[in-house]
């Protein structure tokens, strides 16, 4: 069963982030996917995350597909104009990629090539609209396509952003354009997530909640300072700070994640895990969360 079918049946979906390598050595990424494959339904492959140069998302998606995994292609508006975006999407479909996650993309100044031209010819709403047109057999200029894709399109939303309202307005537009699912930025405050859900219930689009295991108090602070749109509340940071050994830190990390997943599970249609190198904790997190 593929992701689209799982979502339409209302199954609780588990997706996991996969990061292409910095270089050509794809071995570790593929091995990690092989280890996690039995726990997750699809791998969501990042597109130059945080504007740091890596191998293309489409290449790793294709390699994952060849090993029997289901990929989700992340596509950002940061590096390609409307021509290149459409060209790459048509190519991805021809390579067997059926799912796309459309997002704005971080600004290049946050990455390792800060002088790169920030393209943003389309924004994420227009990218979703463009994919919808391709799915209908037309390009953005209205020209007919010979053979067309039928992507399942996902979009992202920051569920715990403050203030939330401007983000909700944009989310509603994406829902109007018919996105198949929303994926949230990582959530550390289940209460804030519930407030968000109450406001968007009527949209009728499945929501996958983002989860990043915290490795340490230092990492939590770093994310608060440096990762756009992430906020770890102080009590969680203190909980991690109290850990004395590596084992204790891992245990607390699993506890925190499982606790958040349990709290949001009744109000979500799935989770999106971003293990950031701690993929060995994924089975424990899912187990403790009762999934």
């Amino acid at each position, binding site marked *: 069963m593929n992701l689209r079918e799982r979502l339409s049946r209302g199954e609780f979906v588990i997706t996991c982030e996969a990061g292409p390598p910095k270089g050509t050595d794809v071995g570790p990424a593929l091995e990690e996917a092989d280890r996690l494959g039995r726990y997750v339904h699809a791998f969501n492959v990042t597109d130059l995350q945080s504007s740091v140069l890596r191998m293309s998302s489409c290449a790793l998606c294709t390699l994952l597909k060849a090993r029997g995994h289901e990929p989700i292609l992340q596509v950002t508006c940061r590096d390609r104009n409307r021509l290149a975006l459409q060209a790459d999407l048509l190519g991805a479909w021809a390579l067997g990629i059926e799912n796309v996650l459309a997002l704005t993309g971080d600004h290049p100044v946050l990455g390792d090539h800060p002088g790169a031209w920030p393209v943003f010819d389309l924004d994420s709403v227009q990218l979703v609209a463009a994919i919808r047109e391709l799915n209908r057999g037309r390009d953005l200029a209205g020209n007919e396509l010979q053979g067309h894709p039928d992507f399942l399109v996902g979009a992202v939303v920051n569920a715990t952003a403050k203030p939330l309202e*401007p983000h909700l307005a944009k989310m509603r537009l994406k829902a109007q354009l018919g996105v198949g699912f929303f994926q949230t*930025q990582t959530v550390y405050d289940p209460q804030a997530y519930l407030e968000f859900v109450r406001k968007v219930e009527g949209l009728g689009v499945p929501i996958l909640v983002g989860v990043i295991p915290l490795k340490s108090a230092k990492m939590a602070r770093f994310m608060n300072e440096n990762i*756009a749109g992430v906020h770890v509340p102080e009590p969680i940071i203190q909980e991690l700070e109290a850990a004395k050994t590596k084992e204790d830190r891992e245990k607390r990390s699993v506890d925190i994640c499982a606790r958040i997943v349990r709290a949001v599970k009744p109000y979500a249609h799935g989770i999106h895990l971003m293990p950031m190198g701690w993929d060995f904790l994924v089975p424990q997190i899912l187990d403790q969360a009762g999934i």
Partner: protein
Amino acid sequence: MLVAELKPTEEILGYLRPGERVFILSCNGCVASVGAGGEKAIADLRAVFSQNGHAVTGSLLAPFACNKALVGLRLLREEPALSQAHVLFVAACGVGVQAVAQVVDKAVYPATNTVTYGAFQGLWPGEERCQRCGQCLLAYTGGICPLTTCAKGLLHGPCGGSHEGECEVEKGRPCGWQKIYDRLSKIGRLDLLHQCRTPHDRKAHLEVPGTRRRSTLWDLERLED
């Protein structure tokens, strides 16, 4: 040499809801020399509105609309006519329209597309406010330019990096889309965020249309060359 042109009539009328009354502000500075401001724009716009069922409550010819303090003072004197209007149309460059939007708590719409500045940045210094994109969007964004105030030039609301009113790009830099949201909320036009915009026409500012070049100032410069 600044070049701007009046927007197509259908677009101008498209901003208005039935029966809305308008006030016209026209800049007598740079745009006047290319026929997109001055007395001519007031006459042109008056004709468009009155022929299409929109009463014009008054008009003002402002020396330089991009001089925010001055234009604010001049508008004070127009208060009676201004208070009768639902919306303002401004025939000025993108900076001028934004300056007026900042001093008036009503919807302020651009009547023009700003195509180029020839390096002139207006009399409202502080930051670059208009990228002369040639397809002015200020009617949809509460008179705050999304292309200059948003670090990514987004057209449909904030990216995921907007947090507590700050942009992801730099500490202390305000998020343009938070500003736009607050402004639309203030003038009661949050409904503008429920519409999808077609992709921006990027070529509109790349080439100044030949017809716009035939101005006295342009010709004078060419003679001097």
